[in-house]
Protein backbone atom coordinates (compact mmCIF):
# COMPACT_ATOMS: atom_id res chain seq x y z
CA UNK A 1 0.00 0.00 0.00
CA UNK A 2 1.33 3.38 -0.95
CA UNK A 3 2.01 5.75 1.92
CA UNK A 4 -1.03 7.89 2.57
CA UNK A 5 -3.40 5.69 0.63
CA UNK A 6 -6.54 5.67 2.73
CA UNK A 7 -8.11 2.75 0.96
CA UNK A 8 -6.84 -0.50 2.43
CA UNK A 9 -6.80 -3.59 0.27
CA UNK A 10 -9.64 -5.00 2.34
CA UNK A 11 -11.78 -2.09 1.09
CA UNK A 12 -10.65 -2.68 -2.49
CA UNK A 13 -11.75 -6.29 -2.17
CA UNK A 14 -15.23 -5.49 -0.83
CA UNK A 15 -17.05 -5.50 -4.16
CA UNK A 16 -15.47 -8.76 -5.22
CA UNK A 17 -16.22 -10.38 -1.85
CA UNK A 18 -19.83 -9.37 -2.09
CA UNK A 19 -20.11 -10.65 -5.67
CA UNK A 20 -18.45 -13.88 -4.57
CA UNK A 21 -21.06 -14.42 -1.85
CA UNK A 22 -23.92 -13.82 -4.28
CA UNK A 23 -22.28 -16.22 -6.63
CA UNK A 24 -22.26 -18.88 -3.90
CA UNK A 25 -26.01 -18.56 -3.50
CA UNK A 26 -26.39 -18.81 -7.26
CA UNK A 27 -24.34 -21.99 -7.31
CA UNK A 28 -26.28 -23.46 -4.46
CA UNK A 29 -29.48 -22.77 -6.36
CA UNK A 30 -28.07 -24.56 -9.39
CA UNK A 31 -26.92 -27.42 -7.23
CA UNK A 32 -30.33 -27.79 -5.62
CA UNK A 33 -31.96 -27.62 -9.05
CA UNK A 34 -29.69 -30.19 -10.59
CA UNK A 35 -30.16 -32.56 -7.68
CA UNK A 36 -33.92 -32.07 -7.80
CA UNK A 37 -33.85 -32.85 -11.52
CA UNK A 38 -31.45 -35.73 -11.25
CA UNK A 39 -33.59 -38.79 -11.02
CA UNK A 40 -30.69 -41.22 -11.18
CA UNK A 41 -29.85 -40.39 -7.56
CA UNK A 42 -26.14 -40.58 -8.24
CA UNK A 43 -24.01 -39.86 -5.21
CA UNK A 44 -26.92 -40.40 -2.86
CA UNK A 45 -26.31 -42.71 0.07
CA UNK A 46 -28.69 -44.40 2.44
CA UNK A 47 -27.85 -42.80 5.75
CA UNK A 48 -28.78 -44.26 9.14
CA UNK A 49 -31.64 -42.16 10.51
CA UNK A 50 -30.59 -42.59 14.14
CA UNK A 51 -27.11 -41.21 13.50
CA UNK A 52 -28.38 -37.91 12.11
CA UNK A 53 -28.83 -34.70 14.10
CA UNK A 54 -30.37 -31.29 13.38
CA UNK A 55 -27.97 -28.41 12.86
CA UNK A 56 -27.25 -26.21 15.84
CA UNK A 57 -24.46 -23.69 15.71
CA UNK A 58 -23.29 -20.98 18.08
CA UNK A 59 -22.34 -17.75 16.33
CA UNK A 60 -20.48 -14.57 17.22
CA UNK A 61 -23.76 -12.92 18.12
CA UNK A 62 -23.11 -12.95 21.87
CA UNK A 63 -22.82 -16.69 21.74
CA UNK A 64 -26.45 -16.93 20.79
CA UNK A 65 -27.22 -20.19 19.11
CA UNK A 66 -28.75 -20.05 15.69
CA UNK A 67 -30.85 -23.12 15.31
CA UNK A 68 -31.32 -24.46 12.01
CA UNK A 69 -33.36 -22.94 10.44
CA UNK A 70 -36.75 -24.29 11.10
CA UNK A 71 -37.78 -23.88 14.70
CA UNK A 72 -41.42 -24.48 14.03
CA UNK A 73 -42.86 -27.53 12.40
CA UNK A 74 -46.48 -27.33 11.37
CA UNK A 75 -47.86 -30.71 12.30
CA UNK A 76 -50.44 -30.76 9.53
CA UNK A 77 -47.85 -30.13 6.87
CA UNK A 78 -45.50 -32.56 8.51
CA UNK A 79 -48.22 -35.21 8.43
CA UNK A 80 -48.86 -34.56 4.75
CA UNK A 81 -45.17 -34.95 3.98
CA UNK A 82 -45.02 -38.08 6.08
CA UNK A 83 -47.89 -39.59 4.19
CA UNK A 84 -46.31 -38.73 0.87
CA UNK A 85 -43.03 -40.31 1.94
CA UNK A 86 -44.82 -43.41 3.21
CA UNK A 87 -46.62 -43.78 -0.10
CA UNK A 88 -44.11 -42.64 -2.69
CA UNK A 89 -40.79 -42.56 -0.90
CA UNK A 90 -38.47 -39.55 -0.74
CA UNK A 91 -38.00 -37.50 -3.94
CA UNK A 92 -35.30 -35.15 -2.77
CA UNK A 93 -32.36 -36.48 -0.79
CA UNK A 94 -31.32 -34.53 2.29
CA UNK A 95 -27.93 -32.81 2.71
CA UNK A 96 -25.74 -33.65 5.66
CA UNK A 97 -22.17 -33.15 6.72
CA UNK A 98 -20.05 -35.61 8.55
CA UNK A 99 -19.60 -35.03 12.28
CA UNK A 100 -17.28 -37.07 14.44
CA UNK A 101 -17.87 -40.74 15.24
CA UNK A 102 -19.91 -41.53 12.15
CA UNK A 103 -22.60 -39.02 13.05
CA UNK A 104 -24.20 -36.64 10.55
CA UNK A 105 -25.45 -33.07 10.94
CA UNK A 106 -28.36 -31.98 8.79
CA UNK A 107 -27.70 -29.07 6.47
CA UNK A 108 -30.91 -29.27 4.53
CA UNK A 109 -33.84 -31.60 5.09
CA UNK A 110 -34.76 -31.62 8.78
CA UNK A 111 -38.47 -32.03 8.02
CA UNK A 112 -37.82 -34.98 5.74
CA UNK A 113 -35.58 -36.55 8.36
CA UNK A 114 -38.20 -36.10 11.10
CA UNK A 115 -40.76 -37.82 8.90
CA UNK A 116 -38.45 -40.76 8.33
CA UNK A 117 -37.78 -41.04 12.02
CA UNK A 118 -41.46 -40.93 12.87
CA UNK A 119 -42.23 -43.46 10.18
CA UNK A 120 -39.74 -45.76 11.86
CA UNK A 121 -37.50 -45.97 8.80
CA UNK A 122 -33.92 -46.97 9.48
CA UNK A 123 -32.30 -45.12 6.57
CA UNK A 124 -32.83 -41.93 4.55
CA UNK A 125 -31.35 -41.02 1.15
CA UNK A 126 -28.86 -38.18 1.54
CA UNK A 127 -25.81 -36.42 0.17
CA UNK A 128 -22.73 -36.01 2.29
CA UNK A 129 -21.11 -32.62 1.75
CA UNK A 130 -17.40 -32.75 2.45
CA UNK A 131 -15.27 -30.28 4.38
CA UNK A 132 -17.97 -27.85 5.41
CA UNK A 133 -17.19 -25.48 8.28
CA UNK A 134 -19.79 -24.47 10.87
CA UNK A 135 -20.29 -21.14 9.20
CA UNK A 136 -20.63 -22.59 5.72
CA UNK A 137 -23.02 -25.24 6.97
CA UNK A 138 -25.21 -22.64 8.57
CA UNK A 139 -25.04 -20.43 5.51
CA UNK A 140 -26.00 -23.27 3.18
CA UNK A 141 -28.72 -24.36 5.48
CA UNK A 142 -30.21 -20.89 5.72
CA UNK A 143 -29.84 -20.28 2.02
CA UNK A 144 -31.49 -23.46 0.91
CA UNK A 145 -34.19 -22.85 3.49
CA UNK A 146 -34.79 -19.37 2.09
CA UNK A 147 -34.97 -20.77 -1.43
CA UNK A 148 -37.62 -23.32 -0.61
CA UNK A 149 -41.10 -22.40 -1.61
CA UNK A 150 -42.98 -24.21 1.10
CA UNK A 151 -41.55 -22.24 4.01
CA UNK A 152 -43.83 -19.72 5.66
CA UNK A 153 -43.11 -15.97 5.41
CA UNK A 154 -42.18 -15.90 9.07
CA UNK A 155 -39.80 -18.83 8.77
CA UNK A 156 -38.28 -17.27 5.71
CA UNK A 157 -37.86 -13.93 7.45
CA UNK A 158 -36.12 -15.61 10.38
CA UNK A 159 -33.75 -17.40 8.02
CA UNK A 160 -32.98 -14.30 5.99
CA UNK A 161 -32.27 -12.36 9.16
CA UNK A 162 -29.93 -15.11 10.32
CA UNK A 163 -28.22 -15.13 6.94
CA UNK A 164 -27.77 -11.36 7.08
CA UNK A 165 -26.43 -11.57 10.62
CA UNK A 166 -23.91 -14.11 9.48
CA UNK A 167 -22.84 -12.21 6.38
CA UNK A 168 -22.69 -8.79 7.97
CA UNK A 169 -21.32 -10.11 11.25
CA UNK A 170 -23.86 -8.07 13.16
CA UNK A 171 -26.38 -8.85 15.88
CA UNK A 172 -30.05 -8.93 15.03
CA UNK A 173 -30.87 -5.46 16.33
CA UNK A 174 -28.13 -3.90 14.19
CA UNK A 175 -29.25 -5.79 11.09
CA UNK A 176 -32.75 -4.46 11.65
CA UNK A 177 -31.52 -0.91 12.06
CA UNK A 178 -29.54 -1.28 8.87
CA UNK A 179 -32.52 -2.62 6.93
CA UNK A 180 -34.73 0.21 8.12
CA UNK A 181 -32.21 2.88 7.22
CA UNK A 182 -31.53 1.27 3.82
CA UNK A 183 -35.23 1.15 3.14
CA UNK A 184 -35.70 4.73 4.24
CA UNK A 185 -32.89 5.80 1.98
CA UNK A 186 -34.37 3.77 -0.88
CA UNK A 187 -37.80 5.36 -0.64
CA UNK A 188 -36.20 8.77 -0.22
CA UNK A 189 -37.30 9.36 3.36
CA UNK A 190 -33.86 10.07 4.59
CA UNK A 191 -30.43 10.86 3.39
CA UNK A 192 -28.71 9.11 6.22
CA UNK A 193 -25.97 6.82 5.19
CA UNK A 194 -24.94 5.52 8.57
CA UNK A 195 -23.89 2.24 7.08
CA UNK A 196 -20.59 1.01 5.73
CA UNK A 197 -20.09 1.26 2.00
CA UNK A 198 -20.25 -2.47 1.39
CA UNK A 199 -23.34 -3.15 3.49
CA UNK A 200 -26.00 -2.06 1.00
CA UNK A 201 -24.38 -4.24 -1.63
CA UNK A 202 -24.28 -7.26 0.66
CA UNK A 203 -27.93 -6.87 1.61
CA UNK A 204 -29.02 -6.22 -1.96
CA UNK A 205 -27.03 -9.18 -3.22
CA UNK A 206 -28.70 -11.57 -0.80
CA UNK A 207 -32.15 -10.20 -1.54
CA UNK A 208 -31.59 -10.34 -5.29
CA UNK A 209 -30.50 -13.92 -5.26
CA UNK A 210 -33.49 -14.85 -3.14
CA UNK A 211 -35.82 -12.85 -5.36
CA UNK A 212 -37.00 -10.57 -2.56
CA UNK A 213 -37.57 -6.83 -2.41
CA UNK A 214 -36.05 -4.80 0.42
CA UNK A 215 -39.45 -3.21 1.05
CA UNK A 216 -41.21 -6.51 1.54
CA UNK A 217 -38.53 -7.78 3.91
CA UNK A 218 -38.79 -4.60 5.98
CA UNK A 219 -42.58 -4.92 5.99
CA UNK A 220 -42.20 -8.40 7.42
CA UNK A 221 -39.82 -7.44 10.22
CA UNK A 222 -42.61 -6.72 12.73
CA UNK A 223 -43.58 -10.39 12.36
CA UNK A 224 -40.51 -11.19 14.43
CA UNK A 225 -41.94 -9.21 17.35
CA UNK A 226 -45.35 -10.86 17.42
CA UNK A 227 -46.39 -12.20 20.81
CA UNK A 228 -45.99 -15.95 20.88
CA UNK A 229 -49.69 -16.78 20.54
CA UNK A 230 -49.95 -14.68 17.37
CA UNK A 231 -46.73 -16.14 16.04
CA UNK A 232 -48.03 -19.64 16.64
CA UNK A 233 -51.27 -18.73 14.91
CA UNK A 234 -49.32 -17.49 11.88
CA UNK A 235 -47.14 -20.56 11.80
CA UNK A 236 -50.11 -22.83 12.23
CA UNK A 237 -51.81 -21.13 9.29
CA UNK A 238 -54.71 -19.91 11.44
CA UNK A 239 -54.13 -16.28 10.48
CA UNK A 240 -52.21 -14.69 7.64
CA UNK A 241 -49.22 -12.46 8.44
CA UNK A 242 -50.98 -9.26 7.42
CA UNK A 243 -53.91 -9.89 9.74
CA UNK A 244 -51.60 -10.99 12.53
CA UNK A 245 -49.79 -7.66 12.31
CA UNK A 246 -53.09 -5.76 12.36
CA UNK A 247 -54.15 -7.70 15.44
CA UNK A 248 -50.79 -7.08 17.10
CA UNK A 249 -51.25 -3.34 16.68
CA UNK A 250 -54.71 -3.36 18.29
CA UNK A 251 -55.14 -3.10 22.08
CA UNK A 252 -53.84 -6.24 23.73
CA UNK A 253 -57.15 -6.98 25.45
CA UNK A 254 -58.70 -7.55 22.02
CA UNK A 255 -56.07 -9.96 20.67
CA UNK A 256 -57.66 -13.26 21.63
CA UNK A 257 -61.08 -12.21 20.58
CA UNK A 258 -59.79 -10.91 17.24
CA UNK A 259 -57.81 -14.04 16.65
CA UNK A 260 -60.90 -16.10 17.21
CA UNK A 261 -63.37 -13.96 15.31
CA UNK A 262 -61.38 -12.05 12.77
CA UNK A 263 -58.53 -14.23 11.59
CA UNK A 264 -60.13 -15.18 8.32
CA UNK A 265 -61.49 -11.73 7.46
CA UNK A 266 -59.98 -9.70 4.66
CA UNK A 267 -57.57 -6.98 5.68
CA UNK A 268 -60.21 -4.31 5.15
CA UNK A 269 -62.93 -6.19 7.05
CA UNK A 270 -60.56 -6.83 9.92
CA UNK A 271 -59.63 -3.15 10.10
CA UNK A 272 -63.29 -2.20 10.34
CA UNK A 273 -63.91 -4.89 12.93
CA UNK A 274 -61.05 -3.59 15.05
CA UNK A 275 -62.33 -0.01 14.80
CA UNK A 276 -65.79 -1.11 15.88
CA UNK A 277 -64.43 -3.12 18.79
CA UNK A 278 -62.32 -0.20 19.93
CA UNK A 279 -65.31 2.14 19.83
CA UNK A 280 -67.29 -0.37 21.79
CA UNK A 281 -64.57 -0.68 24.36
CA UNK A 282 -64.27 3.05 24.78
CA UNK A 283 -68.04 3.64 25.04
CA UNK A 284 -69.68 0.38 26.04
CA UNK A 285 -73.11 1.89 26.74
CA UNK A 286 -73.50 3.29 23.25
CA UNK A 287 -73.99 -0.09 21.62
CA UNK A 288 -77.26 -1.90 21.22
CA UNK A 289 -76.55 -4.28 24.05
CA UNK A 290 -74.97 -7.02 21.98
CA UNK A 291 -71.97 -8.10 23.97
CA UNK A 292 -68.90 -8.63 21.91
CA UNK A 293 -66.43 -8.48 24.72
CA UNK A 294 -67.52 -9.16 28.27
CA UNK A 295 -67.37 -5.86 30.10
CA UNK A 296 -67.57 -4.89 33.71
CA UNK A 297 -70.96 -3.35 34.44
CA UNK A 298 -71.43 -0.25 36.61
CA UNK A 299 -73.60 -2.10 39.11
CA UNK A 300 -70.69 -4.35 39.99
CA UNK A 301 -68.94 -1.41 41.60
CA UNK A 302 -71.65 -1.22 44.26
CA UNK A 303 -71.96 -4.94 44.92
CA UNK A 304 -70.15 -6.93 47.60
CA UNK A 305 -66.91 -8.43 46.34
CA UNK A 306 -68.12 -12.02 46.61
CA UNK A 307 -70.91 -11.23 44.14
CA UNK A 308 -68.50 -9.49 41.81
CA UNK A 309 -66.16 -12.47 41.86
CA UNK A 310 -69.02 -14.89 41.27
CA UNK A 311 -70.35 -12.81 38.37
CA UNK A 312 -66.92 -12.57 36.79
CA UNK A 313 -66.31 -16.27 37.15
CA UNK A 314 -69.66 -17.05 35.55
CA UNK A 315 -68.95 -14.83 32.59
CA UNK A 316 -65.55 -16.40 32.14
CA UNK A 317 -66.98 -19.90 32.23
CA UNK A 318 -69.61 -19.01 29.70
CA UNK A 319 -67.27 -17.30 27.25
CA UNK A 320 -66.79 -19.05 23.98
CA UNK A 321 -63.04 -18.96 24.41
CA UNK A 322 -63.18 -20.90 27.66
CA UNK A 323 -65.61 -23.43 26.23
CA UNK A 324 -62.90 -24.44 23.84
CA UNK A 325 -60.53 -24.81 26.78
CA UNK A 326 -58.78 -21.41 26.83
CA UNK A 327 -55.06 -21.29 26.29
CA UNK A 328 -51.83 -21.54 28.26
CA UNK A 329 -52.00 -17.94 29.32
CA UNK A 330 -55.49 -18.37 30.77
CA UNK A 331 -54.48 -21.58 32.48
CA UNK A 332 -51.57 -19.84 34.15
CA UNK A 333 -53.79 -17.08 35.46
CA UNK A 334 -56.36 -19.62 36.62
CA UNK A 335 -53.64 -21.37 38.56
CA UNK A 336 -52.94 -18.07 40.31
CA UNK A 337 -56.64 -17.59 41.08
CA UNK A 338 -56.83 -21.10 42.45
CA UNK A 339 -53.81 -20.39 44.62
CA UNK A 340 -55.41 -17.18 45.97
CA UNK A 341 -58.69 -18.95 46.70
CA UNK A 342 -56.79 -21.64 48.55
CA UNK A 343 -55.09 -18.97 50.64
CA UNK A 344 -58.47 -17.48 51.55
CA UNK A 345 -59.77 -20.95 52.43
CA UNK A 346 -56.74 -21.63 54.63
CA UNK A 347 -57.13 -18.27 56.34
CA UNK A 348 -60.84 -18.86 57.02
CA UNK A 349 -60.01 -22.23 58.54
CA UNK A 350 -57.92 -20.50 61.22
CA UNK A 351 -60.81 -18.24 62.24
Amino acid at each position, binding site marked *: *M*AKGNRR*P*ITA*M*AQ*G*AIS*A*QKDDEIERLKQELDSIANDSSGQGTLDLPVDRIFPLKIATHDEGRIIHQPRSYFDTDRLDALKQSIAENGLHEPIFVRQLSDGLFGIIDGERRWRCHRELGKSTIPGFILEGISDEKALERSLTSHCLREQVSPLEQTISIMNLLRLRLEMDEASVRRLLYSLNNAAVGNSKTTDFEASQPQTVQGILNSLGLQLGSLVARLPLLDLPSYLRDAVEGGKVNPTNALLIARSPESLHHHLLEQGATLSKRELRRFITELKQFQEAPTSTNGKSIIPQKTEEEDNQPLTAVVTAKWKRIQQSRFMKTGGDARVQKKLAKVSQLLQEIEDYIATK
Partner: protein
Amino acid sequence: MSNAGGTGKTTFAVNLAYQLARIGQSVCLLGCDPNGSLTLFAGLDDPPEPAQTLDHVLNTSFSGDYPLYPVWPDRMEGIDAVLGGLVLTQTAKRLEKEPRGAYLLADALEDHPLSHDVLLLDCPGTIERFHEVALSASTHVLVVIRPVDKDIDAGFKLLNWIYDARKVLRLKPAPEILGVCPNGFRKDLAMHRDNMGNDPERSLPEALKSMGIHKFPTIRESAHLTNASANGLPLGIWRTGEEINKAFEEIAQMIVEV
Protein backbone atom coordinates in the same frame (compact mmCIF):
# COMPACT_ATOMS: atom_id res chain seq x y z
CA MET B 1 -6.99 -12.21 -17.31
CA SER B 2 -6.11 -8.86 -15.83
CA ASN B 3 -7.76 -5.53 -15.46
CA ALA B 4 -4.66 -3.48 -16.15
CA GLY B 5 -2.14 -3.30 -18.93
CA GLY B 6 1.40 -4.57 -18.57
CA THR B 7 0.71 -7.01 -15.75
CA GLY B 8 2.53 -9.76 -17.64
CA LYS B 9 -0.38 -11.85 -18.89
CA THR B 10 1.19 -12.74 -22.21
CA THR B 11 4.63 -13.36 -20.70
CA PHE B 12 2.91 -15.54 -18.15
CA ALA B 13 0.99 -17.40 -20.86
CA VAL B 14 4.00 -18.21 -23.06
CA ASN B 15 6.13 -19.31 -20.13
CA LEU B 16 3.35 -21.44 -18.77
CA ALA B 17 2.82 -22.96 -22.21
CA TYR B 18 6.52 -23.79 -22.38
CA GLN B 19 6.55 -25.47 -18.96
CA LEU B 20 3.38 -27.39 -19.76
CA ALA B 21 4.90 -28.65 -23.01
CA ARG B 22 8.01 -29.73 -21.11
CA ILE B 23 5.93 -32.04 -18.95
CA GLY B 24 4.29 -33.57 -21.98
CA GLN B 25 1.15 -31.51 -22.34
CA SER B 26 0.09 -30.22 -25.73
CA VAL B 27 -0.91 -26.59 -25.51
CA CYS B 28 -2.79 -24.14 -27.71
CA LEU B 29 -2.37 -20.43 -26.97
CA LEU B 30 -5.26 -18.25 -28.10
CA GLY B 31 -4.46 -14.56 -28.44
CA CYS B 32 -7.59 -12.54 -27.65
CA ASP B 33 -5.76 -9.22 -27.56
CA PRO B 34 -5.79 -6.66 -30.40
CA ASN B 35 -2.26 -5.66 -29.38
CA GLY B 36 -0.99 -8.98 -30.69
CA SER B 37 1.69 -9.31 -27.97
CA LEU B 38 1.36 -13.05 -28.19
CA THR B 39 2.63 -12.97 -31.77
CA LEU B 40 5.76 -11.12 -30.67
CA PHE B 41 6.36 -13.13 -27.49
CA ALA B 42 5.96 -16.42 -29.35
CA GLY B 43 8.56 -15.29 -31.86
CA LEU B 44 6.11 -15.21 -34.74
CA ASP B 45 5.38 -12.60 -37.40
CA ASP B 46 2.11 -10.73 -37.63
CA PRO B 47 -0.28 -12.77 -39.76
CA PRO B 48 -0.93 -11.12 -43.11
CA GLU B 49 -4.65 -11.87 -43.32
CA PRO B 50 -7.55 -11.60 -40.83
CA ALA B 51 -8.44 -15.11 -41.93
CA GLN B 52 -5.21 -16.26 -40.25
CA THR B 53 -6.25 -14.91 -36.82
CA LEU B 54 -8.79 -15.59 -34.09
CA ASP B 55 -11.20 -13.44 -36.09
CA HIS B 56 -11.65 -16.36 -38.45
CA VAL B 57 -12.67 -18.65 -35.59
CA LEU B 58 -15.22 -16.16 -34.29
CA ASN B 59 -17.61 -16.61 -37.19
CA THR B 60 -20.92 -18.42 -37.20
CA SER B 61 -19.79 -20.10 -40.42
CA PHE B 62 -16.51 -21.35 -38.87
CA SER B 63 -15.94 -24.92 -40.01
CA GLY B 64 -13.12 -26.06 -37.74
CA ASP B 65 -10.07 -24.97 -39.77
CA TYR B 66 -8.22 -23.28 -36.92
CA PRO B 67 -5.38 -21.05 -38.17
CA LEU B 68 -2.76 -22.76 -36.00
CA TYR B 69 0.83 -21.57 -35.89
CA PRO B 70 3.40 -23.89 -34.31
CA VAL B 71 5.34 -22.06 -31.59
CA TRP B 72 9.12 -22.54 -31.26
CA PRO B 73 8.87 -25.48 -33.72
CA ASP B 74 12.63 -25.82 -34.03
CA ARG B 75 13.00 -26.12 -30.24
CA MET B 76 10.07 -28.23 -29.17
CA GLU B 77 6.81 -29.85 -30.12
CA GLY B 78 3.32 -29.51 -28.73
CA ILE B 79 2.65 -25.76 -28.66
CA ASP B 80 0.41 -24.08 -31.20
CA ALA B 81 -1.10 -20.61 -31.28
CA VAL B 82 -4.13 -18.91 -32.74
CA LEU B 83 -3.07 -15.29 -33.00
CA GLY B 84 -4.82 -12.04 -32.20
CA GLY B 85 -3.90 -8.68 -33.67
CA LEU B 86 -5.33 -5.40 -34.78
CA VAL B 87 -8.16 -7.03 -36.72
CA LEU B 88 -9.73 -7.99 -33.37
CA THR B 89 -10.85 -4.38 -32.87
CA GLN B 90 -13.09 -4.94 -35.90
CA THR B 91 -14.06 -8.37 -34.62
CA ALA B 92 -15.24 -6.84 -31.33
CA LYS B 93 -17.56 -4.50 -33.26
CA ARG B 94 -18.87 -7.36 -35.33
CA LEU B 95 -19.52 -9.47 -32.24
CA GLU B 96 -21.82 -6.77 -30.87
CA LYS B 97 -24.23 -7.51 -33.68
CA GLU B 98 -23.98 -11.29 -33.51
CA PRO B 99 -26.81 -12.92 -31.52
CA ARG B 100 -24.33 -15.31 -29.91
CA GLY B 101 -21.43 -12.85 -29.92
CA ALA B 102 -20.23 -13.61 -26.39
CA TYR B 103 -20.45 -17.36 -27.00
CA LEU B 104 -18.85 -17.68 -30.45
CA LEU B 105 -15.56 -19.08 -29.17
CA ALA B 106 -17.35 -21.47 -26.83
CA ASP B 107 -19.54 -22.58 -29.75
CA ALA B 108 -16.52 -23.08 -32.03
CA LEU B 109 -14.69 -25.15 -29.41
CA GLU B 110 -17.79 -27.20 -28.73
CA ASP B 111 -18.52 -27.90 -32.38
CA HIS B 112 -14.88 -28.33 -33.41
CA PRO B 113 -12.87 -29.33 -30.35
CA LEU B 114 -9.13 -28.72 -30.47
CA SER B 115 -7.04 -31.78 -29.74
CA HIS B 116 -4.69 -30.02 -27.30
CA ASP B 117 -4.56 -30.94 -23.62
CA VAL B 118 -4.58 -27.35 -22.40
CA LEU B 119 -5.95 -24.19 -24.01
CA LEU B 120 -4.55 -20.89 -22.74
CA LEU B 121 -6.58 -17.78 -23.59
CA ASP B 122 -4.64 -14.54 -23.34
CA CYS B 123 -7.07 -11.65 -22.73
CA PRO B 124 -6.67 -7.90 -23.25
CA GLY B 125 -5.58 -5.55 -20.46
CA THR B 126 -8.97 -4.17 -19.47
CA ILE B 127 -12.43 -5.71 -19.32
CA GLU B 128 -14.07 -5.66 -22.71
CA ARG B 129 -16.06 -7.82 -25.13
CA PHE B 130 -13.24 -10.36 -25.46
CA HIS B 131 -13.40 -11.07 -21.74
CA GLU B 132 -16.94 -12.33 -22.18
CA VAL B 133 -15.90 -14.34 -25.23
CA ALA B 134 -13.01 -15.88 -23.29
CA LEU B 135 -14.95 -16.42 -20.05
CA SER B 136 -17.76 -18.29 -21.76
CA ALA B 137 -15.21 -20.57 -23.43
CA SER B 138 -13.17 -21.24 -20.27
CA THR B 139 -13.18 -23.88 -17.60
CA HIS B 140 -10.86 -21.91 -15.30
CA VAL B 141 -9.66 -18.34 -14.94
CA LEU B 142 -6.23 -17.27 -13.76
CA VAL B 143 -5.76 -13.62 -12.84
CA VAL B 144 -2.38 -11.90 -13.03
CA ILE B 145 -1.86 -8.85 -10.80
CA ARG B 146 1.14 -6.60 -10.28
CA PRO B 147 1.47 -5.78 -6.56
CA VAL B 148 0.69 -2.06 -6.91
CA ASP B 149 -2.42 -0.40 -5.49
CA LYS B 150 -3.93 0.52 -8.84
CA ASP B 151 -3.63 -2.99 -10.26
CA ILE B 152 -4.85 -4.66 -7.07
CA ASP B 153 -7.90 -2.43 -6.96
CA ALA B 154 -8.57 -3.17 -10.63
CA GLY B 155 -7.88 -6.87 -10.03
CA PHE B 156 -10.61 -7.09 -7.41
CA LYS B 157 -12.95 -5.33 -9.79
CA LEU B 158 -12.12 -8.00 -12.33
CA LEU B 159 -12.96 -10.74 -9.80
CA ASN B 160 -16.21 -8.93 -9.08
CA TRP B 161 -16.91 -8.80 -12.81
CA ILE B 162 -16.17 -12.52 -13.23
CA TYR B 163 -18.62 -13.49 -10.48
CA ASP B 164 -21.31 -11.29 -12.01
CA ALA B 165 -20.60 -12.21 -15.63
CA ARG B 166 -20.79 -15.93 -14.89
CA LYS B 167 -24.36 -15.35 -13.78
CA VAL B 168 -25.31 -12.96 -16.57
CA LEU B 169 -23.86 -15.25 -19.23
CA ARG B 170 -25.51 -18.24 -17.52
CA LEU B 171 -22.40 -20.35 -17.81
CA LYS B 172 -23.02 -23.94 -16.77
CA PRO B 173 -20.77 -25.19 -15.46
CA ALA B 174 -19.42 -21.78 -14.51
CA PRO B 175 -15.67 -21.34 -15.04
CA GLU B 176 -13.81 -21.50 -11.76
CA ILE B 177 -11.35 -18.93 -10.52
CA LEU B 178 -8.19 -20.98 -10.45
CA GLY B 179 -6.25 -18.36 -8.58
CA VAL B 180 -4.35 -15.10 -8.65
CA CYS B 181 -0.70 -14.82 -9.57
CA PRO B 182 1.19 -11.77 -8.28
CA ASN B 183 3.64 -10.87 -11.02
CA GLY B 184 6.48 -8.37 -11.34
CA PHE B 185 7.26 -8.24 -7.62
CA ARG B 186 10.13 -5.95 -6.61
CA LYS B 187 11.34 -6.21 -3.08
CA ASP B 188 13.13 -2.87 -3.30
CA LEU B 189 9.80 -1.08 -3.57
CA ALA B 190 7.98 -0.36 -0.30
CA MET B 191 4.58 -0.50 -1.97
CA HIS B 192 5.26 -3.97 -3.34
CA ARG B 193 6.57 -5.19 0.01
CA ASP B 194 3.55 -3.82 1.89
CA ASN B 195 1.06 -5.24 -0.56
CA MET B 196 2.67 -8.65 -0.40
CA GLY B 197 3.14 -8.50 3.40
CA ASN B 198 1.24 -9.86 6.38
CA ASP B 199 -0.85 -6.90 7.51
CA PRO B 200 -4.40 -8.22 7.09
CA GLU B 201 -5.67 -4.76 6.12
CA ARG B 202 -3.06 -4.14 3.51
CA SER B 203 -2.00 -7.43 2.08
CA LEU B 204 -3.07 -8.96 -1.22
CA PRO B 205 -2.25 -12.52 -0.09
CA GLU B 206 -4.32 -12.04 3.09
CA ALA B 207 -7.28 -10.63 1.16
CA LEU B 208 -7.17 -13.58 -1.22
CA LYS B 209 -6.93 -15.99 1.69
CA SER B 210 -10.03 -14.52 3.28
CA MET B 211 -11.89 -15.06 0.02
CA GLY B 212 -10.64 -18.60 -0.34
CA ILE B 213 -8.92 -17.74 -3.61
CA HIS B 214 -5.70 -19.56 -4.36
CA LYS B 215 -2.50 -17.52 -4.61
CA PHE B 216 0.02 -18.83 -7.10
CA PRO B 217 3.75 -18.46 -6.42
CA THR B 218 4.81 -14.82 -6.67
CA ILE B 219 6.85 -14.06 -9.76
CA ARG B 220 9.40 -11.34 -9.25
CA GLU B 221 10.25 -8.63 -11.70
CA SER B 222 13.03 -9.79 -13.97
CA ALA B 223 14.81 -8.13 -16.84
CA HIS B 224 15.66 -11.59 -18.15
CA LEU B 225 11.98 -12.45 -18.31
CA THR B 226 11.18 -9.25 -20.21
CA ASN B 227 14.13 -9.76 -22.56
CA ALA B 228 13.16 -13.35 -23.24
CA SER B 229 9.64 -12.26 -24.22
CA ALA B 230 10.94 -9.43 -26.37
CA ASN B 231 13.07 -12.00 -28.16
CA GLY B 232 10.08 -14.23 -28.70
CA LEU B 233 11.25 -16.97 -26.35
CA PRO B 234 10.23 -18.40 -23.00
CA LEU B 235 12.63 -17.80 -20.13
CA GLY B 236 13.19 -21.53 -19.97
CA ILE B 237 14.94 -21.40 -23.34
CA TRP B 238 16.41 -17.90 -22.99
CA ARG B 239 18.01 -18.58 -19.61
CA THR B 240 17.38 -22.12 -18.49
CA GLY B 241 18.97 -21.66 -15.07
CA GLU B 242 16.77 -18.76 -13.92
CA GLU B 243 15.03 -19.21 -10.58
CA ILE B 244 11.72 -17.90 -11.98
CA ASN B 245 11.40 -20.94 -14.23
CA LYS B 246 10.75 -22.99 -11.10
CA ALA B 247 7.69 -20.86 -10.29
CA PHE B 248 6.29 -21.43 -13.77
CA GLU B 249 7.08 -25.12 -13.47
CA GLU B 250 5.16 -25.26 -10.22
CA ILE B 251 2.15 -23.48 -11.74
CA ALA B 252 2.23 -25.83 -14.76
CA GLN B 253 2.17 -28.82 -12.38
CA MET B 254 -0.85 -27.42 -10.58
CA ILE B 255 -2.68 -26.87 -13.84
CA VAL B 256 -2.05 -30.43 -14.95
CA GLU B 257 -3.46 -31.65 -11.64
CA VAL B 258 -6.63 -29.62 -12.23
